């Protein structure tokens, strides 16, 4: 029954990610980021992507370092207690990429607009900040129904493709997330194409019995790729936590050296070997 959407990472990225796309990235900060998919985007040399994520970390920084990004929409891009995101910071300070200044609500509401098919959503926030000075696509207005409330109109965000990493998926495209969902479910709903990478491939029957079932349902998924440790060096609950040593390594290395060692022409197995192999896996396993 059903058509299998299982494919290789190379095939999924080359088929469904085009230069100039608006790419939604799931997860949050150092948690459950689709980093293997981002490394593949760098390997394939995709260009002029607009990256949209709720809270970004090392994956956004890598894509910028890899020259794939022309614009970022995120409420925060940083390396948590490890410091600032170096490529993100450098690229903005040098005027090399565009930033759409975002808050948490502007991302969450922008995505909500997309599935409600409305051009904007109102928010009783952002008013009084300097956001309107740097965003000509947001506007303060008075409640048209007459309450007198001042509101901020925040525009729709459409995604061409969503990259989401989950612990469990079936080949039909049902994805199950253990733990926090963040905006992954909204992204899957609205993206024209959704690529799910997963730790473990299971059957539809298993998805039915997992808590939360298919938070990412098959009807919105185009590709499923099995990539164990696919969100390393970020976490994937309940399998592993983020890899603090790899993040430190990333911050100490010149990005081009990092790219040579960990990204260019590296299979997932070669990547994990370079990243410390068995010892690293034992370090991060929960």
């Amino acid at each position, binding site marked *: 029954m059903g058509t299998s959407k299982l494919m290789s990472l190379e095939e999924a990225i080359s088929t469904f990610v085009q230069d100039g796309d608006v790419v939604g990235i799931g997860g949050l*900060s150092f948690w459950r980021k689709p980093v293997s998919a981002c490394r593949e985007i760098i390997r394939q040399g995709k260009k002029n992507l607009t990256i949209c994520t*709720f809270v970004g970390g090392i994956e956004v920084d890598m894509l910028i370092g890899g020259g794939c990004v022309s614009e970022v929409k995120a*409420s925060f891009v940083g390396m948590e207690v490890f410091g600032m995101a170096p490529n*993100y910071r450098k690229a903005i300070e040098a005027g090399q990429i565009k930033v759409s200044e975002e808050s948490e*609500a502007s991302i969450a509401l922008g995505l*909500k607009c997309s599935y409600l098919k409305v051009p904007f959503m109102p928010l009783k926030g952002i*008013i009084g900040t300097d956001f309107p000075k740097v965003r000509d696509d947001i506007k303060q207005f008075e409640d048209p129904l007459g309450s007198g409330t001042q509101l901020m109109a925040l525009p729709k965000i459409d995604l061409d493709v969503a990259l989401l990493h989950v612990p469990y998926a079936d080949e039909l495209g049902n994805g199950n997330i253990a733990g926090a969902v963040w*905006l992954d479910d909204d992204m899957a709903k609205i993206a024209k194409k959704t690529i799910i990478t997963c730790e473990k491939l299971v059957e539809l029957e298993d998805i039915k019995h997992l808590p939360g079932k298919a938070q990412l349902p098959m009807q919105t998924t185009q590709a499923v790729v099995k990539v164990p440790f696919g969100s390393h060096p970020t976490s994937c609950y309940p399998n592993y936590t983020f890899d603090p040593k790899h993040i430190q390594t990333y911050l100490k290395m010149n990005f081009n050296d990092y790219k040579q060692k960990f990204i260019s022409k590296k299979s997932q197995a070669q990547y994990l070997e370079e990243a410390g192999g068995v010892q690293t896996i034992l370090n991060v396993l929960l």
Partner: protein
Amino acid sequence: MERMTEYSKDYTADEILTVLMAREVKNDDVMIVGVATPMVWAAFTLAKLTHAPEAIYHYIMGNTFVYEPRQVSLLYLEMNTARAYRFQNSGECTLESLPSDTLTTIEFFRPAQVDQFGNTNNICIGDWEKPKIRFPGCAGIADFSMFYKRGTFLYTTRHDTKTFVTSDKVNFISGVGFPDGKPSICGGSGPQCMITNLAYLDFDDSTKRMRVGSIHPGIDIEEIKSSTGFELLIPEGLKETEPPTIKEIKALREKADPIGIRKLEILAGSEREDFLNDIIEKELAMEMKFPKLIK
């Protein structure tokens, strides 16, 4: 036997900050734990262990509501959020639950710049178009700072003239204080306090300007004045900050944050890096990865 409150004699700078933040928590609060703020997590856990046992954690990293207190952790925060009694997706969290009239929320923001009216900047230094320094961003501060019924709570581990600047020097307002000395039209209570390594600052009821609420033991008022880029209101009969009690310090050191992860917010340079490496080694060596449940 009745005894007078006994105060700690050996508390450190990170400890007085954490204790003062904990004291702001009320028993019916939802405590918002943001990204990369171990000191806030330590303060909230300390509050749970001392005077606010019913307070609820809301972890932004999980968008989860969690009831039980666990030891502060660097690597295993997500394990803690997986012990939630309710999950929300980020849309629900941002748009529905937090700015509600039935929850009293407490959230601490750590600004890169703050002016005399509590307006804050977490975006950039210099012109936004081509900044000298670009910061990670303001996350939800732009959404909530004008909203919270209980107001917002500010802290900094570095009370200096880079952080405390006059309104014209704030490069980007990403958190709303009292715009032009008036409450926000969005209905929130505005900034309630700014807790620093030198003083507890609050806001004057009529002018909404920042004033010295109390001065930490051993700190000179002149140091506070020279470390602030605008004129602080200084009330007559300036009070001294109530120091951390022995009980608070014991709960913080032995239960809430024994590894001392909160110190990452106060250390700098190679000292910080060495300490970070030490925390990582200690936590990687743990067999049980769930942050320790505190009973």
